[in-house]
């Protein structure tokens, strides 16, 4: 029980990001608790947040949620039942009251407080400068379009480099892959020979052994290998039987002729 409670507290702590923004919400909530008299408004902006927070911090709730078998740690989403922004803004505007001067001061001061106690969403490291209307890296589009331009089959199996793996199948689901982006988050013990031969050396800062890689990719029928130029090292791809097709946006595109032949045979006999 104590462990569940500490997990609830940890989830709350992670949710706040240890920033002061939700402290302003708390002050606003206390102000509304004291001042707001309309029954309906009190119910949704004063009592509801209180009840939700009590339930959220109750160890029994966390235990029950875990028992439902939800994947990942998404218990924090119950906090979305609390309209933090509405409580904060309503409290501030209500505090400013009917005076125009007070409203202007409230706007300036509270905006500054929110800005300094919060964090601009666009400063998140997941944001990048836009390169196209698709909202994915330009490299993905260039590489997939290139492969489709040199191969007249409808579908092909490719091994993308880790920087584009997430967006390849979003752009074109005809691209088959030996493993997906989710493999990078997979718990220890997940086995994929191609991943082991391609990604593990990069993680361990070791050169990629082309012999091992091609052995694994042939078993998975991978026809194209996309490799960022930075990880090529002194790899002897020709000895391993790969053919270098192009360098697209600093990504080398290799083709495995053995698989190309196999695919051609398969298509001919299909």
């Amino acid at each position, binding site marked *: 029980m104590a462990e569940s409670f500490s997990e609830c507290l940890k989830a709350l702590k*992670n*949710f706040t990001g240890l*920033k002061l*923004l*939700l402290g302003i919400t708390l002050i606003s909530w206390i102000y509304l608790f004291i001042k707001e008299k*309309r029954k*309906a*408004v009190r*119910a*949704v902006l004063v009592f*509801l947040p209180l*009840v939700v927070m009590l339930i959220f911090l109750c160890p029994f709730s966390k235990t029950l949620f875990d028992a439902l078998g*939800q*994947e990942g740690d998404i218990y*924090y*989403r119950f906090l*979305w*039942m609390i*309209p*933090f*922004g*509405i409580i*904060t*803004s*309503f409290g501030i*505007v*209500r505090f400013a009251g*009917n005076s*125009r001067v007070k409203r202007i001061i*409230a*706007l300036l001061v509270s*905006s500054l407080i*929110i800005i300094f106690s*919060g*964090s601009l*969403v*666009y400063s*998140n490291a*997941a*944001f990048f400068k*836009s390169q196209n*209307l*698709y*909202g*994915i*890296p330009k490299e993905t589009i260039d590489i997939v379009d290139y492969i489709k331009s040199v191969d007249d089959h409808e*579908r092909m199996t490719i091994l993308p480099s880790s920087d584009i*793996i*997430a*967006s390849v*199948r*979003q*752009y*074109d*689901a*005809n691209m088959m*892959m030996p493993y*997906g*982006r*989710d493999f990078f988050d997979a718990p220890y013990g997940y086995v994929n020979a191609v991943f082991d031969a391609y990604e593990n050396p990069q993680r361990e800062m070791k050169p990629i052994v082309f012999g091992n890689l091609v052995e694994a990719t042939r078993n998975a029928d991978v026809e194209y290998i996309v490799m960022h130029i930075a990880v090529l090292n002194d790899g002897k791809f020709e000895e391993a039987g790969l053919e270098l097709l192009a360098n697209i946006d600093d990504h080398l595109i290799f083709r495995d002729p053995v698989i190309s032949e196999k695919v051609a045979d398969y298509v001919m006999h299909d």
Partner: protein
Amino acid sequence: MIILNALGILFWMILIPFCIGFLPIRIIPTGLRKPIFIYITGFIITLAALELTGIPTELIFVYNAYRKFVIVFGAVLILLAVFGVISLRAFLTASSQKLNCTSVKSLLRPEKTSLKSQISSMSLESKIYMLISLLLIASQIVMLFLVYSRDADDSFYNAQATSAQVFGTMYRIDAGTGYTTNLDYRHCFALFPMYQAFISSASGVHLLIVAHKIVPIVLIPITYYLLYNFGSVLFPKKQEAAWLFVILINVFKLFGGISHYTAETFFLLRTWQGKSFAGNFILPGIIFIFLYMKNKSDGTVENNAKSKSVNKFELLALAFLVLAAGSASSIAVLISVGLVGLLSLIFLVINRDWKAFFREIATIIPGILYMLLYLICTVVG
């Protein structure tokens, strides 16, 4: 071609939901009979229809489920839109009016004054606050084109949608690899990606443009419209306060990225994902409906002619919001059901109105059925 694509988007994403929004016109409270609110009503009904057509299709058909879904869902939407127009016509006929632009305009203008005269009657302070609010909202739309986010979940949701388009099945393809797999019961009930796939297939616009650009262009303004309505209910007859509220909400949304977990982070980082829509629209929508409904019975909302009566529209809206939450995720349904349950209980304690409580609790039935089906499928499947 681009013109045809744009027309396709306007038809399926704007016109059809707008016409569907007229279905419950008889019971929509006069104060809420405004164009954007009608559109939102239609959009929520569209998502409910998405669940009611998509789930049986993917459970029944192994092969070509997506192709069948596109036909069935498209036909249902057109049918609902036609019924919406019929409902509007019947409503106008009942008040001795004909269905034409003038009568619809006058119906959707409860204040009985034009938008221009409404704006000119606003105080200078209100006008400035409104302008700042609109600029802040516009800046978030402009940012959609200046930056893009790399979110891990996109590689699942968007790839599920493109896989459906390419392979014709629904949730039977491993999004990561493209190889076939068993029906993914954990995710197959959350059909928001399939809605985007449908819009993409029907308009000929690439799924990623639909998901990353077009859907957010709709979701961001309707979310702020909902929040503006909060402001109007919280500050009746005080436009300055209502617009100031919208500015502060904007600032809070922009600077609410204090962790990866806040609804604000989801709102701008992954606007197009169902879970973001649930956290930023469905849940506040449920709270708004309760606030509007109960404030009305307190007699504090302008339009209180029906106070103490059965709030048919509000109750239906709750049921549809809970069902629409299902398009986002199974956890969104659980939270929506929990939120309706909690608010019903809180108001029961306050008002001691058991009849109202039972009516409100009944709105979670679609959500309960959804969760039961989900549990049966995940356990058995």
